[in-house]
């Protein structure tokens, strides 16, 4: 008989907490970031088409949607960076205590927004 059980427990059977929220968000932002990198590769490749053709891309990037996309990507990268730092600390054996894990989880969530603002301000040379 074919085994129809899931290989890994599915997310809907767990009650939500900070760790599970960070864990699934880490995976989702990871997939989004690689899709974003593919778009960035395409953007770089389209530069070969020359200045005239680039005007269409520039028009999109200067639109509300383009600006929102870059802002979202900044957050997505920020979240991934902080979450990955949290994982690296775990790999060296730090931060496994329940309270520490909750605090670092909150730092990843709120820190990602702070880092997004910081990166945006540095990128726009406001600070």
């Amino acid at each position, binding site marked *: 008989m074919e085994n129809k059980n899931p290989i890994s427990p599915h997310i809907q059977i767990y009650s939500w907490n900070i760790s599970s929220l960070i864990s699934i968000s880490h995976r989702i932002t990871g997939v989004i970031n690689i899709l974003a*990198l593919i778009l960035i590769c395409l953007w770089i490749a389209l*530069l070969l088409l020359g200045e005239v053709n680039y005007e269409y891309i520039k028009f999109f990037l200067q639109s509300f949607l383009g600006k929102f996309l870059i802002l979202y990507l900044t957050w997505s990268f920020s979240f991934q960076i902080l979450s990955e730092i949290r994982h*690296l600390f775990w790999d060296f054996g730090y931060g496994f205590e329940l309270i520490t894990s909750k605090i670092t989880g909150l730092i990843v969530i709120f820190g990602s927004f702070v880092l997004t603002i910081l*990166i*945006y301000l540095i990128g726009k040379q406001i600070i």
Partner: protein
Amino acid sequence: MINATKKWIFLKVSSAILIPLMIWFIINLVSIYEKDYIDIVSFFSTQPSKFLTSLLMIVAFFYSSLSISEIFEDYIHDKKIKKMANKVLYILSIIIPLITIMVLFNLNI
């Protein structure tokens, strides 16, 4: 050393390399995305930008292919589909950064 251990070490080393590269790239992306064609090509034409963007692409696609293969491992039941998905993933992880690097080194003002 078993393969799973090697994979884990590669994943961790690449993630440690990626963190500063991602910070560098996203700050510069925010800085240039609205600018004119000439400014963007000028940015990617400098040696540090070429080198760091190429390194980012290689490490990011390497890291992502390892991470996404873990997601396939967890959620794809059928072994044939999983094998095929991993093959497509690994091929794309080589081709996409390779093309991007070739473009980067052919960009001229």
